[in-house]
């Protein structure tokens, strides 16, 4: 946001002018690199404070920042945190600050630079960040937060999407209440698309005579890639590979699902109302072959049914009535509630009441820390981990800001699930439903990615307990192009009715030609995605590290990778300095719940590659050639004639 107004066409002249505000995003195979650039001129007769404040998605990695103030250029470098702080303290820039601050908005954080600018001076800011696009509910969502703060002489947003797999659909929903109808221009080809958003100054105005800008919100681009051709897409380039896996045409696996809902006093009011509303929709969505129950807890733990019951209409209706009558009050006993849920599922499993092909899920909804019963979070983690069976996945939804989200994340990540934050200030009900819809359709269990060739290394998490329809599992790794011309992958999994083995072969030149033809395509996308996945997964593993030594080892790896790949992570900071090095700013990332790959639905594990299962190795029926007895008496049509006998 920038203080003051700008030039003749846009208000009185003695202020700061936003000359241009440009955003360029390039998505190459789900790897997005975004550059935000703005140019400002101080027309006022006195020094002005100019703020460059951009929102970036949480989980995105800032990779570069540069600033030119009145001809002096400041460039960024990524340093280990303490080194960064030391450099900064040696040469604090006068009248200039930078920093990464927690954003009040959903799933975002702010990169903010403030500079005091002399009269007549020009300033240019440029920030680069990268992120991975995670497939949710059947599409990838690219959100650009546009907040120029004032009318801009040149406001330009360009999004290029390059997907070798082919783009199935692309959509730019209206997020400005119709104010910019017709302004976004979409051009879409088979494998490439471009969205441009370039409102004129007049179009930017909130009203024809207003001086304020209407551009304050998100430009959203939704798309998905072609899938009906094959289940997995293995893309190999420059010594790295990324493997996208999102099979669609499989029947859902029956689920055994337990909803564990916090009904302590703090849930009273809107939260509970929205939770009940969401639960009613979710219960209606259960399939006949699913089994379920509901546990509500405060300082006590109650369950609607003592056992799992089939999701018949009658049972669902009864469960809804039960939920509607809940009155939140009292404390929060998470430990007891979770152990009860685990007991019900374990018992049902031990009694053989569960479909052997089914998936068991616990979905915990809570808005606060434990206040009754076991209060020690690590003890709760231990209790849960010790009692939960391997076929159960625990998903946690943390509502609002009072909840210890990191605890829920650890609790879930170490029990084959993930945590997700539910923002109280947004429509809680739709967030709950949206999350549930991501896990409502399990299609595969025990999904494992194997890359048998020994020169494939540094593979990211490659083993996942579940795969849910509408999402996508992404695995990446490195290989030595000198030794390997093509990469073989073997995916093993269990579907609703079969054991599955999928083999894929891919070589580098599949992409080489394709990428070289497009000036926007990022030839570095495989390396970036691999680094993004690896660092995020290491950050999550670090919070689960069982010993200080393990934690130190992981920390060292994360730091090394952050520096090598020029990424701002919780372990590094960005030092911004001028050529002389006598003016420095420090952009440090805020203490945050750097959830692993925010938006990723999976938190898997790393397992050594398995060979193809014996049953799949069965060589296909020996081709017994047709016996070719004595040659024909006479010459017959020459063999190349592609004709068979006919009447």
């Amino acid at each position: 946001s920038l203080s003051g107004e700008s030039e003749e066409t846009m208000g009185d002249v003695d202020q700061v002018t936003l000359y241009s505000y440009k955003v360029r995003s390039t998505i190459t195979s789900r790897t997005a690199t975004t550059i935000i650039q703005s140019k400002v001129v101080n027309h006022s007769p006195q020094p002005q404070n100019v703020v460059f404040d951009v929102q970036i998605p949480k989980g995105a990695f800032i990779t570069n920042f540069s600033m030119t103030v009145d001809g002096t250029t400041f460039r960024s470098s990524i340093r280990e945190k303490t080194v960064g702080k030391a450099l900064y303290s040696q040469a604090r820039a006068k009248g200039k600050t930078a920093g990464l601050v927690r954003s009040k908005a959903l799933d975002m954080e702010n990169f903010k630079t403030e500079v005091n600018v002399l009269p007549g001076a020009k300033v240019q800011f440029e920030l680069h960040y990268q992120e991975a696009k995670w497939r949710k509910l059947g599409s990838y969502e690219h959100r650009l937060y546009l907040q120029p703060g004032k009318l801009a002489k040149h406001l330009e947003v360009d999004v290029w999407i390059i997907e070798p797999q082919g783009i199935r659909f692309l959509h730019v929903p209206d997020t400005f209440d119709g104010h910019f109808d017709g302004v976004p221009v979409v051009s879409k080809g088979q494998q490439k698309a471009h969205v441009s958003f370039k409102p004129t100054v007049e179009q930017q105005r909130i009203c024809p005579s207003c001086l304020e800008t209407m551009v304050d919100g998100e430009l959203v681009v939704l798309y998905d890639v072609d899938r009906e051709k094959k289940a997995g897409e293995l893309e190999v380039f420059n010594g790295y590979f990324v493997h996208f896996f999102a099979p669609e045409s499989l029947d859902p696996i029956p689920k055994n699902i337990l909803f564990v809902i916090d009904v302590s006093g703090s849930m009273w009011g809107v939260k509970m109302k929205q939770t009940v509303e969401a639960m009613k929709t979710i219960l209606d969505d259960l399939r006949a072959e699913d089994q379920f129950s509901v546990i509500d807890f405060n300082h006590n733990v109650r369950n609607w049914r003592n056992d799992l019951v089939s999701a018949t209409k009658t049972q669902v209706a009864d469960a809804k009535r039960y939920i509607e009558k809940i009155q939140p009050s009292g404390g929060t006993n998470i430990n007891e509630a979770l152990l009860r849920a685990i007991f019900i599922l374990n018992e049902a499993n031990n009694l053989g009441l569960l479909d052997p092909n089914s998936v068991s899920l616990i979905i915990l909804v809570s808005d606060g820390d434990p206040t009754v019963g076991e209060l020690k979070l690590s003890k709760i983690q231990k209790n849960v981990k010790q009692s939960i069976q391997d076929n159960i996945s625990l998903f946690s939804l943390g509502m609002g800001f009072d909840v210890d989200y990191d605890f829920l994340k650890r609790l879930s990540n170490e029990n084959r699930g993930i945590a997700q934050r539910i923002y109280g200030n947004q429509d809680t009900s739709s967030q709950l439903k949206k999350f549930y819809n991501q896990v409502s359709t399990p299609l595969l269990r025990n999904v494992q990615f194997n890359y048998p060739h020994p020169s494939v290394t540094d593979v990211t998490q490659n083993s996942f307990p579940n795969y849910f329809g509408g999402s996508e599992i992404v695995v990446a790794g490195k290989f030595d192009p000198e030794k390997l011309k093509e990469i073989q992958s073997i995916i093993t999994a269990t579907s609703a009715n079969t054991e599955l083995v999928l083999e894929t072969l891919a070589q580098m030149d599949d992409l080489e030609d394709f990428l070289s033809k497009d000036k926007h395509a990022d030839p570095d996308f495989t390396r970036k995605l691999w680094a993004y996945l690896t660092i995020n997964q290491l950050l999550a593993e670090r919070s689960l590290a069982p010993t200080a030594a393990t934690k130190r080892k992981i920390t060292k790896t994360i730091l090394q990778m952050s520096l090598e790949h020029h990424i701002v992570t919780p372990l590094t900071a960005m030092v911004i300095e001028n050529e002389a090095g006598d003016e420095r700013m420090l952009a440090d990332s805020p203490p945050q719940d750097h959830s692993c790959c925010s938006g990723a639905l999976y938190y898997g594990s790393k397992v050594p590659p398995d060979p193809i299962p014996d049953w799949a190795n069965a060589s296909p029926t020996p081709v017994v050639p047709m016996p070719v007895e004595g040659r024909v008496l006479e010459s017959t049509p020459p063999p190349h004639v592609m004709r068979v006998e006919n009447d």
Partner: protein
Amino acid sequence: PHFIVYLPKSQSNICFNIDSEPGKILNLVSDPESGILVNGQLVGAKKPNNGKLSTYFGKLGFYFQKEDTKIEISTKDVTVSHRSRTSVLSWSDTAHVVNQSVLISMKKENAVTITLDKGMSFSVLLHRVWKKHPINVDFLGIYIPPTNNFSPEVHGLIGQFMQEPKIHIFNERPGKDPQKPEASMEVKGQTLTVSRGLQKDYRTDIVFGTDVPCWFVHNNGKGFIDGRYTDYFVPQLYSFLKRP
């Protein structure tokens, strides 16, 4: 589609064609006793060639009753239904799928092999043609090894030959077409005039195929097959053959 039947005792390949129309479903193997069924649905070329519309197998249905498994193979994908649940595999993948005792191995854009525990197997080849070809369409080929141990009651256009008929070929002579000798063949109590010809086995060479010399039975295999080929039409992809 053209058929090649190898008769091990006679050490002879006998072949015939079925000239029918798109959409018709032919029963290829019907073995109610072992609960095995194979049907093939015809697909037509994009347009007639020399006034004649060629037909091919566009879809094959396998039903293994005892394993409660249905496998539908089309030129687009392979659908495996086991009990009430379905998985669809695409020809773009190399995949192996097993449920209970049925193993399906797919080789990307090439072939599917179905293997049952009891030493039974079937191979299906995918013939992918150039999309813009004015006449040709994608089609399938099916290969059933003579080692499959069906029940003695097995029947169908191909199944009936699991019980090898006795044949006697004699009086080889030049045919009307000098390049194609003729002969007489005694089979199932009749004497047929057969022509020497070539069919194609595509398993080892999917494009050009391997020439398989054979004695060709005219008129849709009349006299060699039991009854007429129209007797092998079934209404659905998973209908067993109703035998007189």
